[in-house]
């Protein structure tokens, strides 16, 4: 047994003999109060596992169905869905236009970000941030050591 293993064994033996800590006397009261407070909440504000079985089944089935429907729509109904949204009268078309505009704005902003001068500004900002972080760390360590 090497010295490190010997140290591990000796310290481990003593630690294993340590008795469990006694929990504070009011811990049980505190937990039971929290349980009672939770029980007073309506079921839909409690943890999912506390919901009535029918609600869990409904939620599980609904979410599963929604996921399946979205995946199926993506695979087989993409073109049909766009036509449906586009031909959905004035309101649907307006929503579709707004989405397209947002997409175009995002693309434009991304192109702006790639401008060399803007990248330079970002690089300078990053260097200044790192400098401040380094200076703060150095100050913290020096002050702490002095204390």
């Amino acid at each position, binding site marked *: 047994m090497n010295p490190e293993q010997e140290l591990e064994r000796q310290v481990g033996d003593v630690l294993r003999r340590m008795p469990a800590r006694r929990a504070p006397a009011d*811990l049980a009261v505190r937990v039971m109060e929290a349980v009672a407070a939770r029980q007073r909440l309506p079921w839909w504000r409690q943890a999912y596992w506390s919901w009535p079985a029918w609600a869990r089944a409904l939620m599980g089935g609904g979410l599963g169905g929604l996921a399946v429907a979205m995946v199926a729509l993506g695979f087989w109904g993409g073109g049909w869905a766009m036509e449906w949204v586009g031909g959905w009268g004035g309101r649907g078309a307006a929503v579709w236009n707004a989405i397209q505009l947002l997409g175009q704005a995002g693309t434009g902003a991304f192109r702006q970000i790639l401008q060399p001068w803007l990248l330079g500004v970002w690089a300078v900002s990053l260097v200044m941030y790192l400098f401040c972080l380094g200076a703060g760390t150095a100050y913290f360590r020096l002050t702490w050591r002095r204390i």
Partner: protein
Amino acid sequence: MNESEQFEAFMRDHQDMVYTVAIRLLGNDADAQDVCQETFLRAYDRFAELIKTQTVGGWLRTVARNLALNHLTRYRARWRFFSEMMPEGEEGQFEADLAAPPESNAPGDADRWADLEDVLRRLPEHQRVPLVLFHFEELSYEEIARRLGVSLSKVKTDIHRARQSLAKKMEQMGLLADGSRAAEGCGGCG
């Protein structure tokens, strides 16, 4: 006995174990109580299933350990960035800070264990947490490194230093035979 009374009895059976896991990892009574409360609230949500299993103690222990580790990660990540860069010499301050244990205590009495708990609590967090995970929670070095998101060599070094600090105090307390402490260096680390 209704469900609430049953749960209260269940909690009184296990609260010392859960509290011990939490306080040894967190080193702070208020945080440990928060973790205990959250652990038992989760147990309450699954009480009907848990009460039927033989491994309920293990389940509680695992939940308490995970919650305590999450708590450490969530609330201490920022200052750990600074504190774990402490120069080596500052760790020695821990030993200087500890008062010499009373000489008169008989070996194994409650005061002596309380003193040792205090020594454990006052270890630097980056040493205490892996030491507790290794010796009390019986995780491997690799598992500890994975859970804490640090390198294997750091885990070994931190545990070794924690053991050395504890061994010195254990010797002073008469819990280890004088001169039996091994491994002054870190031959087994890294």
